[in-house]
């Protein structure tokens, strides 16, 4: 049987490899799944009998919990493995960890790893579905998908919008996934941050580079404000958090000068008063908590599609259960 064109294939490693149609079908599939989380009994039998391992080799709260909710609400059996308190601290390699999990007959692995390429590395070596929950500075596809869904919810389109990603682009997997996803869906993409935190040659990816936050705000319909990792100061990329806020912080005063209402996203966790001020984060243009809500639906959609689900049947699957 030939696979339908919107099929994701075995894994979700990044948005760079996906087509526009594949990305849209994930977003469309997420729509019917949103409603599950609003029910009194938040559980449907879509992934009943599937075993999913959440392999988080790097600290994560939001993403790990979001995946876990998505899995549990779809009735999958889940196991969580962290970097501490597991065989990883005993020096086991990623390949060996994966092979051992595989030997216990699992269906999917959701992996977070500090090394770029780790998710694809795993995907090539095990037959289970692999979902990238963030690999080094490479990609964080489900974060970008939930960002896309949130933008589409709020502004009813993505094509033709001007979206500027602000902050540490160099080290950000969220930025890369957003750039690939937004460009594929026809948005214009800008990046803004100190030159020390922009990769050399980033413009060759097809993005506009802003050196001043004021110019980015004047241009953009949407700002996706990235967390400034505090260790970037030790790395000498920025002289101080105070100075960063002063020149790159998204503040009320700066937003007030914008020619239009700019939608504000942030992948969290926020450093209030550094990359974003509290009155912006909590203000009317912020959709930061909607992103978190959408995260669960998007992850449900990804798990459902990788398990062999078809977008058109998502609604029915919620009632009848199963993807077979």
């Amino acid at each position, binding site marked *: 049987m030939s696979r339908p064109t919107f099929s994701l294939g075995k894994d979700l490693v990044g948005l760079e490899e996906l087509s526009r149609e594949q990305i849209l079908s994930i977003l469309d599939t997420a729509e019917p799944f949103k409603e599950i989380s609003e029910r009194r009994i938040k559980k449907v039998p879509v992934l009943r009998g599937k075993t999913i391992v959440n392999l988080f080799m790097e600290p994560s709260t939001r993403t790990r919990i979001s995946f876990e909710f998505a899995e549990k609400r779809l009735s999958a059996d889940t196991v969580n493995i962290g970097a501490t308190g597991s065989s990883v601290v005993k020096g086991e*390699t990623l390949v060996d960890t994966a092979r051992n999990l595989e030997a216990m007959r699992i269906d999917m692995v959701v992996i977070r790893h500090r090394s770029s390429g780790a998710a694809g590395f795993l995907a090539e070596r095990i037959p289970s579905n692999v979902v990238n929950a963030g690999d080094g500075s490479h990609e964080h596809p489900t974060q970008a998908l939930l960002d896309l869904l949130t933008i589409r919810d709020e502004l009813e389109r993505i094509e033709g919008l001007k979206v500027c990603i602000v902050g540490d682009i160099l080290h950000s997997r969220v930025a890369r996934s957003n750039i690939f996803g937004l460009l594929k869906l026809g948005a214009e993409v800008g990046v803004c941050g100190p030159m020390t935190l922009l990769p050399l040659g980033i413009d060759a*990816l097809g993005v506009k580079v802003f050196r001043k936050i004021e110019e980015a705000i004047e241009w953009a319909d949407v700002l996706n404000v990235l967390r400034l990792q505090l260790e970037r100061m030790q790395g000498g990329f920025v002289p101080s958090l105070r100075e960063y806020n002063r020149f790159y912080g998204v503040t009320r005063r700066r937003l007030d000068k914008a020619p239009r209402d700019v939608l504000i996203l942030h992948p969290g966790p926020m450093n209030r008063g550094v990359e974003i001020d509290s009155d912006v984060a909590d203000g009317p243009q912020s959709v930061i908590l909607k992103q978190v809500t959408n995260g669960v639906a998007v992850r449900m959609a990804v798990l459902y599609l990788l398990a062999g689900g078809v977008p058109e049947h998502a609604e029915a699957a919620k009632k009848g259960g199963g993807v077979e």
Partner: protein
Amino acid sequence: MSPRPLLLKGGRVIDPERELDEVLDLLLVEGKVARSGRDLTAPEGAKIEECRDLLVVPGLIDVHVHLREPGGEHKETIATGTRAAAAGGFTAVCAMPNTDPVIDSPATVGFVSAAAREAGHCRVYPVGAISIGQRGEQLTEIGELVQAGAVAITDDGHSVMDSGLMRRALEYAQAFDIPVADHPEDLSLSRDGVMNEGLVSARLGLPGKPNASEDVHIARDLLVAELTGGRLHLQHVSTRLGVEAIRSAKARGVRVTAEAAPHHLLLTDEAVGGYRTDAKMNPPLRTESDREAVVNGLLDGTLDTLATDHAPHHYEEKEQAFADAPFGVVGLETALGLMLTHFVEPGRMSLRTLIERMSVQPAQAFGIPGGTLVEGSPGDVTVIDPSREWTVDPDAFRSRGRNTPFTGWALRGRAVLTVVGGRITHREPEAD
């Protein structure tokens, strides 16, 4: 005990030093070149090798090889590394000192020489460290290292960041007439980079080493060499501006020689796409304009020697996420085939130039015997079948390392007979 006389009959003998390129017999007696000429008669007891349609050239020399022993025997040993060298047509290699322990004392130099003699596959010239433990602080006892058999010094694997130390090394080594070889990398610019810094690294989300990290260091080394009059050898040059800096320094009369590695001549950072750890080495694969500049540098002689930077690793070490895998690729068994197929065959490089870069000039740069077939020179000869077709298959390597970016490449031309001191150390089996 000297070997039986060996008569290589009817091959195309190329000896750039004598401007020689014709079909001749070559006779080796008592481990040395005895004579070359037409229809030589074999002395009694001589072994005769038919070399019709084959090339007979001075033994190939690789001045940049990591044999890993002592301390890294799971990656390679002196025995397996030299076996690989012989299979690749090399009759001599220079062994890098970044082992454990570091080759920074007469005893460790002696160990490498002794182990190589015992293995017997090719000559091994140890290269000593510039600084004790390669820590970049205090000069090694360079004179004693040379007396023990070291032919050069380098902190390769590391970079000499202290310009003052580099100056002292370039001054002090002159008394012993050896080159100071440097791995040119400004670590404060390359930092935690794991590949070339550029568009590909931006896409993959991998930290990069910019060209400038190499350019700055090459420029510094050239200026310090100019200041001191010392003999500088720059290892594995990979950047366009690096090549240009060397070209202009040579024009000013600076005593410098330099290397190009096959992977930098044939691949760019695009080969890293998909996080291929077999395309991870240091310096990294750069961009097309760099690749082209390194090719031109090797063609016009700005880069004097082809050197493989053979850097074997255990497969488990390369079977990791890209940033976690070690730097390095193997090269001894593929270098000649790659050069013949991709440079000589399409007419970009003459056979003579190839022999110069792979034999004559390596011998000159490191002041070691060989590089010629003139009478009385060492009986180190490589016999090449220029039309032998083969495919790069790491499982067939004699090296313990399997880490090559050239797996599956179809090549034409390879060494079929390697002769060291008049003894055959490798005979390539007939193709099926």
